[in-house]
């Protein structure tokens, strides 16, 4: 039982309340290079954060996204978002996975391209449950099928929607 009135903002207990482990996690503004993902078997490419807005990027084969997600999960990264880009001219769909680290200034972009006429890719919602909604949304917008996804019913579009509005050839 917690009887009285501790932990009020503005009072000193605030500092005491912070878990010591997270205290250390507050990092300085400068990125702690070298690349903490260097030991991964996947060839990440460092990019200039000031120009791009992320630190590492990698293009993988469609089959590797789950493995990459698992690895990044182990490294303590969180899923930022999943989205698609419709490269109609090239006949491809790009699926982009953004990850961010909770303590370090580290953003990772994982891309993969799948054929536009058969847009199918494995789901990573088994690794990151948060991917569920992002994948549903991507399915809504681009019609990309996430294999093994628990529920690919329309998320933002009406329940009976069959169109994929963010495809470049979409007409309302």
């Amino acid at each position, binding site marked *: *039982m*917690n009887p009285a*009135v501790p*932990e*009020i*903002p*503005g009072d000193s207990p*605030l500092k005491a*309340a*912070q*878990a010591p482990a*997270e*205290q250390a*996690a*507050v*990092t300085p*503004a400068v990125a702690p290079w070298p690349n903490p993902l260097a030991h991964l078997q996947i060839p990440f490419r460092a990019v200039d*954060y*000031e*120009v*791009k*807005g*992320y630190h590492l990027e990698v293009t993988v084969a469609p089959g590797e996204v789950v493995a990459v997600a698992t690895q990044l*999960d182990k490294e*303590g990264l*969180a*899923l*930022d*978002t999943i*989205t698609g*880009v*419709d490269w109609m001219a090239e006949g491809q769909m790009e699926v*982009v996975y*953004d990850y*961010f*680290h*909770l*303590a*370090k*200034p580290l*953003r990772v*972009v994982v891309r993969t391209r799948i054929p536009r006429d058969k847009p199918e890719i494995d789901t990573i919602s088994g690794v*990151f*449950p*948060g991917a*569920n*909604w*992002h994948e549903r*949304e991507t399915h809504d*917008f681009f019609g990309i099928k996430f294999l093994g996804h628990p529920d690919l019913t*329309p*998320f*933002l*579009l*009406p329940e009976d929607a069959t169109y994929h*509005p*963010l495809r470049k050839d979409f007409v309302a």
Partner: protein
Amino acid sequence: MTEKADFLTGDVAAGQPPRETFVLNLGPQHPATHGVLRVKMTMDGEYIVRAEPVCGYIHRMQEKMGENRTYAQFLPNTSRIDYLSAMTYTHAFVGAVERAAKIPVPPRAEYIRVITSELNRISSHLVWWGAFLLDLGGFTPLLYAFDDREKILDLLEAITGARLTYCYYRFGGLCNDVDDSFIKGTREFVAHMRPRLKMYRGLVTENIIFRKRLEGIGPISQEMCRKYGATGPVIRGSGVSYDVRRVEPYSAYPEFDFEIPTFPGGDSMARYLVRMEEMVQSLRIIEQALDKLPAGPVMADKVPRVLKLPAGDYCYAVEAARGRFAVRIVSDNKEIPYRVKLRTPSLSNLSLFEEASKGMLLPDALALMGSLDLVIPDIDR
């Protein structure tokens, strides 16, 4: 404070599948969903077996519009994604374009951006505070919060011309400079707000009814936050001091001294306290920024009238009032972006609701939902 519903549940044979369930459709019009979220709840009495949010009731094609409009034309849309912290959202979009087009922003503009963003954060938290209390059945705090918020809105309206959808930032700076009356008014506001926060504490934070309703309710672990990508006060309420302003510093934030309030509880109370403390920190930032506000122009010199970003993709993340908001622009070197992706915090924050609300009582789940601070158009875009 983990004992809950002990009177009602008592010795319950756990693990058995529930048999008496019914489906309760919360929303799309329901006072607790703050707009048009629909939650399909499978209930066993007042216990939630499964709460499945159904989104899309205010999907407004923001991303599609991004592909239809020039960068400048898309700018006003950003204020309407999360209308409660419109400044920060515009900031992210403007920042992404500036990053891609390598437009330098004058320091005065950056400072004013910080001031206005933080003011906006306070106003957003005030709305949340009031609406949250409304969820819990207290009406008066809402009006006190709106009262204080009006003061912020007056300040912001004087410089931007709008109360909610400011559209104040431009690529390379701001559309207007601030004047002395704004600076004076902001100082007055900071002086006014501190005792008000104290009053809020007496009225609400220490209130036994309120504490009983929040303490230990809706715990969210750090791991769950990470797995779902929850950010902002939600993750900070779970003890992780993740804040974009610290981790990926942007604008003039590195120049200010402020704390990232974290509370380890992970319950609704922790999230509540984080936001209350954030208001204090925002006031600190505003004060520092006002003290240090440099002179100079508020608009970069050479901003091309017709913006074309070099091909490639560009990201920019900001700490909005609800957490990490990131804009991702894919450009193919045309006037119109090839793809604009808006990563909104509310979507990720809500996505953990289904897991977190399992087995909770309906009012507790609504307290949890309120503590996530949802803005539905932010989810649906």
